[in-house]
């Protein structure tokens, strides 16, 4: 409960923990509530940090979640640096320490990808590696007790009301950002492999198609196919992103609820400590599993994009 000032209500505490540090544009004429209760009106469009959830909401699309992006970037750099160092110093002699650990991950990714993806593509395996390790690291931030890093950030910034979420994958922007990228790659590879016409045919001539004798039936069937296939296609990135987000968000939420127990009293605080430990242990499984699922599904989608249906149409 380090971040709350003692008198903060449970609802405020939870809401505060679920708000990202948002840097965005507030329009001219916007009424801002100041910390001391006064109100001020902005004279022109202003890029600033949101002081409340309402402000963050009012910023609309033109806003950045500095905490999600920052942690995501930091973890990406950490991984990239580690991998690069290992790749540079690696030798084909007996691997030791960090190298053998990284090779273990590489081997795991490589065998998983080659089980699922049978086409020739230099992009897919590195992408699977990136997704698995990066998502895992972002999920791993969940295991830090919910108040530690925000407390540090608040002390450093001097703002006791600073919003600071440390788990990037509890931000739908992050998970959807990745899944939409995967989706665009999927469409890109699909068109590259089958041609634009092949891609359109896949969307419209599937699953129902009338034989040439009854060609006029296709006039009805093609829109139906298109509808079905488009829904199925769109569902892929949405489900991919939301699955990860939902799991991590729920896990984070339970950590926050458990953290609430610490303020209630000694006995419940101890129970809370025990619960937090138990949930964290269980969560190790969840974060690994979610990272793995994201990786496998991405690879499966890539394989689907490369698979050519050998049906005569």
């Amino acid at each position, binding site marked *: 409960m380090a971040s709350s000032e003692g008198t903060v209500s449970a609802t405020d505490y939870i809401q505060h923990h*679920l708000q990202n540090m948002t840097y965005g544009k507030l329009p001219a004429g916007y009424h801002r509530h100041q910390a001391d209760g006064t109100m001020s009106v902005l004279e022109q469009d202003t890029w600033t940090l949101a002081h409340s959830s309402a402000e963050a909401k009012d910023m609309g699309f033109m806003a950045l979640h500095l905490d999600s992006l920052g942690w995501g970037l930091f973890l990406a750099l950490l991984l990239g640096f580690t991998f690069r160092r290992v790749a*540079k110093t690696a030798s084909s002699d007996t691997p030791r320490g960090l190298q053998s650990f990284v090779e273990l991950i590489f081997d795991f990714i490589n065998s998983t990808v080659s089980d699922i993806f049978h086409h020739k593509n230099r992009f897919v395996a590195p992408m699977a590696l*990136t997704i698995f390790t990066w998502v895992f690291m972002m999920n791993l931030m969940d295991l830090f007790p919910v108040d530690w890093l925000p407390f540090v950030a608040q002390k450093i910034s001097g703002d006791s009301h600073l919003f600071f979420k440390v788990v990037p994958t509890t931000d*739908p922007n992050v998970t959807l950002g990745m899944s939409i990228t995967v989706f665009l790659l999927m469409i890109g590879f699909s068109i590259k492999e089958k041609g634009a016409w092949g891609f359109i045919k896949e969307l419209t001539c599937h699953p129902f198609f009338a034989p040439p004798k009854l060609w006029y039936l296709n006039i009805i069937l093609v829109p139906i196919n298109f509808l079905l296939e488009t829904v199925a296609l769109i569902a892929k990135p949405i489900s991919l992103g939301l699955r990860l987000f939902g799991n991590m968000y729920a896990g984070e939420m339970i950590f926050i609820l458990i953290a609430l127990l610490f303020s209630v009293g000694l006995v419940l605080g101890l129970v809370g400590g025990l619960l937090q430990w138990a949930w964290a242990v269980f969560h190790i499984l969840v974060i690994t599993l979610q990272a793995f699922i994201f990786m496998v599904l991405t690879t499966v989608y890539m394989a689907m994009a490369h698979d050519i249906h050998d049906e005569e149409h």
Partner: protein
Amino acid sequence: MNINLTLIGQSLTFIVFVLFCMKYVWPALIGIMVQREQRIADGLEAADRADKDLELAKKEAKKKLHKAKEQAATIIDQANKRGSQIVEEAKEQARAEADRIKTAAQAEVAREVSQAREELRGKVAALALAGAEKVLESSIDASSHNAMLDKLAAEL
């Protein structure tokens, strides 16, 4: 919970990270892993080959040892034969030498005997002449009795 520019920022980070891994990390490390696999396979194969080689060498060594033993036996045999042969030869030679020396000695003896006899004969003639001179106390014409004396000497 709002959808905003973070989405695009995350996408860009993602793409850059993937491209980085694709270019600088994945091929390098996978290459090294493949290389190691190759080395291990080569090593195992070499070990197998070395085992086979060792067995062959052992067999070869055994064969060679056997052959050497046989050869040694032959050489010893030959040496023995040769030795006894040399001894025989030496014996033979010694015997021949002995014979030769004996013959030479006999010849010497015979020669000396005949020489002694010659000498004796000559001296007998002179002695007989001197005796007869003394007996007759007169000088005998040597030339007139020479024939008779020679005859006498030859009879000795």
